[in-house]
Each structure stands twice: as C-alpha cells, then as structure tokens.
C-alpha cells in the first residue's frame, strides 16, 4: 500500500495523519487527487489541492512509485 501524508485540513477531513492507498488506484498525481476527492468529497470544497512527491510540488502527470514520499498539500497559510 502507498502511504500518503496528510497535513492541516486534509488531516481533519480524513481523520488521520496518513492514508494508505492501493497503488493501482493512484498511478499518477491526477489519479490520486481524483481518488481522494471521491473517497472524501470534502476535498472538493477546498480552494486548491496540491500533491508533493519526494518533498517537491508535483504536476498531475507525475507517476507515483511505491517508494515515493507522497503528501497531500491543502491550501497553505503560513506567515
């Protein structure tokens, strides 16, 4: 299973700080976004939704591999 890190409101939406996803259901960043938005419809209400792969913002076409560090980045609000 692929482990996905959750922060901020994403953690509240899922009710956990990590999510385990069958990699077949999220082969790309876009598929991961679609998967979590279907499983947890509240993600659709956010102002934006980004995915980080190995500590860098990833575009929708990025392929996800088993050993990648994947994180859901809801709208940031530092500062």
């Amino acid at each position: 299973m692929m482990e996905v890190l959750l922060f901020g409101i994403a953690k509240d939406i899922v009710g956990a700080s990590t999510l385990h996803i069958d990699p077949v259901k999220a082969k790309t960043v876009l598929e991961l976004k679609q998967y979590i938005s279907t499983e947890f419809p509240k993600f659709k209400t956010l102002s934006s939704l980004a995915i980080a792969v190995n500590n860098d913002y990833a575009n929708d076409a990025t392929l996800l591999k088993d050993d990648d560090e994947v994180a859901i980045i809801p709208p940031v609000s530092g500062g």
Partner: protein
Amino acid sequence: MKKIDIQIVKDIDTTTVYQKLSHPECGGVCVFIGAVRDNTQNEKVEALAFEAYEKMALLEMYKIAEDACLKWDLKKVILHHVQGRKQVEDPVVLVGAASAHRDACFEACRYLIDTLKERVPIWKKEFFSDKTVWVSAHP
C-alpha cells in the same frame, strides 16, 4: 554564519536578527516580522496554531532564499518560521535580507515573505471562542 539561514522553530528570536544579518559590505538590512493579530474580519482571535510539513517546508524556504539571491545581490538571507501554538502578539515568521544598498534588501524582503506565504507547506489554524478555522482552506 552561512549566507542563508533557514529554520523552523518553536519560538522566534527577534533580538539577534541584526547580528545574524549584518555584513561588512552591507549598508542595508531589511527585516519583516509577522505576528499574531487579535482579530480576523472583526472576530476576536484567541490563538493560532501552525503545522508544518517540516522537511518540505525547509526545502521550499531554502529555494526561496536561493531565488532571492539570484534576483538581488544579497550577502545574507534569513527565513525563520514557527511551528506550534502561538498567542496574540507572538512573532510567527521572520524574514530578512542584507545588501549593499537599501533597494535590494527592501525588494528582497517583500519577495521572501510573499513567496513564503504562497508556497511553503505550513498551515495556520485560528482559534476563536466558539470555533477553529484552517486559514485559506476554503474559497
């Protein structure tokens, strides 16, 4: 001290920033400090809590500092951000730059804070008397 100083900390030390940024070739040092305000849209804020994706946040902050050094001739750059619960008037972010003349450090300082707010994976939760809100989460 190295040219770029990036940290995520429990508390911001505002008293030593000049020592950290001063440089013999710099006639200008510009610092921005963000603090906890006691209200948002006329509602009383009791406290804030910051959560960071620390590893990525440090990398993003470093990239912002490096970009600033490419855009302006800076001798020192600092970006510090807090993590954890903060009270009204507590400093939560400190950015600064040092340059030969003031224009570069003023512009760089603005770039540092604006880009940090845009990109760095840190999240702020506001505590009101009757609710908590993740800032900017919803349109």
